[in-house]
């Protein structure tokens, strides 16, 4: 059981803290010109954060208790190839489709 006071303290502090994290640069820097070195690095935020965010989910999925799952590795590769060469929607269909197919095929053995 979670104590009511604990819950509200945590939730309110989390709400404030999360907002401040999100507001940090966008709120303070606003329309100011950023230094060139910072602009140079900011170009790479998306390609720097997302692979690191999802790599552990692909290699050590919670659904398998952290065990490496060949079906998920192959599905991730399929999503990447289609996303790289064709389209976002195509990649999502390819990724989930390959996962289901691989689970079916590998499950048959």
């Amino acid at each position, binding site marked *: 059981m979670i104590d009511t006071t604990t819950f509200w303290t945590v939730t309110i502090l989390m709400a404030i803290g*999360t907002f401040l994290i*999100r507001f*940090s640069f966008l709120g303070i820097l606003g*329309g100011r010109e950023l230094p060139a070195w910072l602009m140079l690095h900011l170009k790479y935020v998306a390609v720097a954060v997302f692979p*690191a*965010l999802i790599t552990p989910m692909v290699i050590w999925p919670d659904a398998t208790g952290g065990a490496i799952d060949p079906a998920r590795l192959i599905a991730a590769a399929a999503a990447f*190839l289609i*996303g790289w060469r064709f389209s976002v929607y195509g*990649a999502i269909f390819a990724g989930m489709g390959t996962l289901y197919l691989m689970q079916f095929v590998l499950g048959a053995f």
Partner: protein
Amino acid sequence: MDRSTSAAFWRGLLDVLPFLLIVVPFAVLFGVVARDAGLNLFEAMSMSVLVIAGASQFTALALMQDQAPVLITVATALAVNLRMAMYSAALVPHVGKARLGTRALMSYLMVDQAFAVAVKKYEETPSMTLPEKLAYYFGCMSMLAPLWYLFSLIGALVGQAIPAELSLDFAMPVCFIALTAPLLRSAPHVVAAIVSVVMAVAFAWLPWNLGLLVAAALAMIAGAQTELYLNRKRAAQEVTV
């Protein structure tokens, strides 16, 4: 709203549709887990509305159930959200000139999916005006935020998660792979992504989700340094030619 901003709004609304595959099951699961943890409906919904950051909410619930101290719980949950400071910085060049209130609302609504979809759009379409960029972002979140609330509520009311056999846990990596792959259009982007993957594995042992932040920082530096290196090489060639 004039025609171009209203078009951008609808475009954003439609472009995040694939992400419902992540948001809907994740929200339902949060509702279920929150009720299982003993929260009432109002508490579960308050957390989803006030914090609006799924991964950190799960983290906090798990720690509170383990009777962890309040400060440890808050610090760990916030560490999960620290990556959003990078999103915040990366949005400055695009929407930094918006009004303060608008930027505050954008901050409240800053989730992985909206950032990913919006930045991809902004980079592909440099001709977008500020009002169009704002409309696009709010279009994305007009779809995602209400559904996050609604499906948290449904999960909390129904108490039944989406069956694990559907493997929708994998929708999250798949959607982000789908969005990131097309961004790899220059050598520095490819280098950054590779460093990001390798370092995420190398630093996976770090506590409090810090591996993600270390990997992301190193990857950004790698991308920037590769760009500088290529520029120097090009400049040197031009001199010799």
